């Protein structure tokens, strides 16, 4: 068993000390033209699985998060630093799964009337869709909790240079990300891992010793090339924004790597291993065992193929009482899993349209439609040539914003899987908030949300902002 203090101390690094230093120095009060602001947030969330489907599930979990940030501004110069400590505990297990102390954002900016430059670790948002990723792919995401966090919260800041030029009726933006960072994903050992508790289920299940030995030998490794901080792994993007008629439009080009890895087999037996991992069954396990795989056959390597993306966004086309916004992208060389579990790169056209409306009674809702079209289609493991998804978000606040009701839904018209996230939130005085909500997942086990069919949960959240 590890104690929180020990784990924190072990992981504390120079960045965190910088954040804490900057956080406390302003309290002494800076005068003159410069301004310093600081703040933070403590967040405690308790998750309770609604049904005990298997013995390996994490039935009750607690997540804690402590964020601090500080910002310094003087004339056209500003600096921002934020840090985070987060922990995760399993109730009843008496063990703490993880504690991290990290530098979140740390950047400096210099502005003039025509130019602006930001250097450092930061978050950038491109695109006009809410909580959906079509072209908003500059930052990697933390998927270790699947979609429990909103898109903005999931974003992992990365080191980058961001330069702006402001023309009379347009602005141009250049991004350069020198070092590649992947999205954070667990493959085994958590409720939200790609392959769930599969290893544990086999190792503790009623299977042959050889099957258990094979599964315990499965390893998913980083491939060196992209995990090294070299400029050769750099990514970049350029965006132009202007107004056409009464509509704000942006056009962009990006060269980025897929943030979610493909699992590349080292030998041909690796595809049989992938068949078992993606469609686990006694048959697929027996099929793998029959190959008598060696250690090398049980290694899958994470690869992040590069993609050229040409895209854009717009906001807002007025249609009567409604506002229409959207984003689109042509992804050249996006990776897909074939039905034989090998990988192939295909071009994909994706677009999303969103409609926002607020009724006279102040009910806000938005409806988004997302379409993916795979060009030069061939039969794939889980993707159809055309796939369509809708998302729906409903919000209503009462008591002048102190009580908030929200419903987030996503439904795939193509694959039939869905997610529902109702939530009630109350804001107390002094920055304290309490929320009660739930996640319901439905669908087939090979679909995005259906994969978590047995992971429906309710949650409570306490937040204190300062």
């Amino acid at each position, binding site marked *: 068993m590890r104690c929180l203090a020990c784990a924190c101390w072990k992981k504390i690094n120079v960045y965190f000390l910088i954040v804490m230093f900057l956080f406390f120095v302003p309290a002494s009060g800076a005068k003159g033209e410069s301004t310093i*602001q600081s*703040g933070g*947030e403590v967040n405690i969330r308790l998750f309770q699985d609604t049904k005990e489907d298997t013995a390996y599930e994490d039935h009750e979990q607690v997540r804690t998060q402590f964020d601090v940030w500080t910002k310094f501004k003087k004339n*056209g110069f500003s600096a921002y630093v934020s840090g985070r400590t987060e922990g995760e505990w399993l109730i009843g297990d008496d063990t703490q799964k993880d504690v991290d102390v990290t530098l979140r954002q740390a950047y400096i*900016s210099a*502005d*003039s*009337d*025509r130019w*602006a430059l*930001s250097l450092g670790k930061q*978050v950038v*948002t491109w*695109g*006009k869709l*809410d909580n959906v990723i079509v072209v908003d792919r500059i930052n990697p995401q933390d998927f270790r909790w699947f979609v429990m966090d*909103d*898109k*903005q919260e999931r*974003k992992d800041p990365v080191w980058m240079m961001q330069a*702006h030029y*402001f023309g009379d009726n347009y*602005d141009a933006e250049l991004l350069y990300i020198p070092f590649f960072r992947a999205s954070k994903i667990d493959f085994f050992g958590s409720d939200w891992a790609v392959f769930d508790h599969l290893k544990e289920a086999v190792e503790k299940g009623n299977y042959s010793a050889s099957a258990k030995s094979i599964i315990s030998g499965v390893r998913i490794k980083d491939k060196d090339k992209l995990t090294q901080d070299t400029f050769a792994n750099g990514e970049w993007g350029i965006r132009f*924004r202007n107004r056409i008629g*009464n509509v*704000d439009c942006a056009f962009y080009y990006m060269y980025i790597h897929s943030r979610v890895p493909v699992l590349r087999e080292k030998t041909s037996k690796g595809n049989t291993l992938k068949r078992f991992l993606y469609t686990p069954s006694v048959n697929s396990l027996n099929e793998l065992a029959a190959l008598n795989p060696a250690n090398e056959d049980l290694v899958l390597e994470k690869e992040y193929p590069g993609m050229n993306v040409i895209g854009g966004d717009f*906001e*807002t086309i*007025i249609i*009567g*009482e*409604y*506002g229409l*916004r959207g984003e689109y992208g042509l992804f050249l060389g996006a990776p897909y899993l074939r039905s034989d579990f090998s990988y192939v790169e295909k071009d994909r056209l994706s677009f999303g349209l969103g409609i*926002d*409306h*607020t009724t*006279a009674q*102040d009910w806000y809702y938005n409806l988004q439609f997302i379409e993916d079209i795979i060009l030069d289609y061939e039969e794939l493991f889980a993707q159809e040539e055309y796939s369509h998804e809708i998302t729906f978000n409903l919000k209503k*606040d009462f008591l*002048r*914003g102190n009580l908030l009701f929200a419903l987030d839904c996503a439904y795939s018209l193509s694959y039939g899987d869905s997610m529902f996230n109702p939530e009630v939130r109350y*804001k107390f005085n*002094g*920055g304290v*908030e309490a929320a009660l909500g739930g996640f319901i997942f439905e669908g087939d086990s090979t679909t995005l949300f259906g994969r978590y069919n047995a992971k429906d949960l309710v949650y409570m959240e306490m937040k204190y*902002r*300062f």
Partner: protein
Amino acid sequence: MIKRWCRIVISGVILVSSVLVYNIFAQEHSAKAIMDKVFTRYDGDDSYSEVEMVLLDKKGYERKRQLEIYTKDYGKLIKTYIKFTEPADIRGTAFLSIENEGKDNTQYLYLPALGRARRIVSSQKKLRFVNTDYTYEDMQRRRPEDDKHMFLREEACGQGETCAVIESVPKNNSQYTKRINWVDRNKELILRTDFYGRNGRMIKRFKVLSMKKIDNIWTAVDVIMEDFTNNHKTELKIESISYNQGISDEMFSLRVLEKD
């Protein structure tokens, strides 16, 4: 004899009508002139203010917010940037309003949770601005040419001042059917506005509680908007204001809105 009387009556009617029409035209003209003066009054080339916002509900319960307001003139047009700095639950929320020649203002609201600015479309301008008693329509200056103005009367107002009371009826889309403005003609400031809704009832009142001459510019330093339907008030108290500081154009860009 009858013909003569008819001629006299018709001439009289024409004369009286002409006088009335002239009088109405003159009143409209003078009312419009007053509103033009208010609209074009010099209030600095730019300004930066720190403001306390107090939300008061019907039970007298108060919620306070701090905000910073930047404005800058671009000829006849103004750009406004508002940033909420306190308390923590609204910190980071920001608003950008850009006046357009002959068109509705372009307004954006940045919510930190979304991570991007959202454009406020015209159908949303009747909605409350971040749970205050101001709507997005109230957050933009009303151009005199957008209303038909009628001079109603002169009346004592403020602290021993005389106000012109002017009725302004929108010519185009508005959530209000009319506004009645109390204009201090000397200071060229609106000291009070009563807002009327679709049912003809007064639904809101804006009032200047206190004003000061700062850098030779008359400035409303304490104003209140009262919503009679919800029995709720929003008071804005300027804690500090500085004019003509040379605020950069970049302050009024989407980049600053999304990153500041």
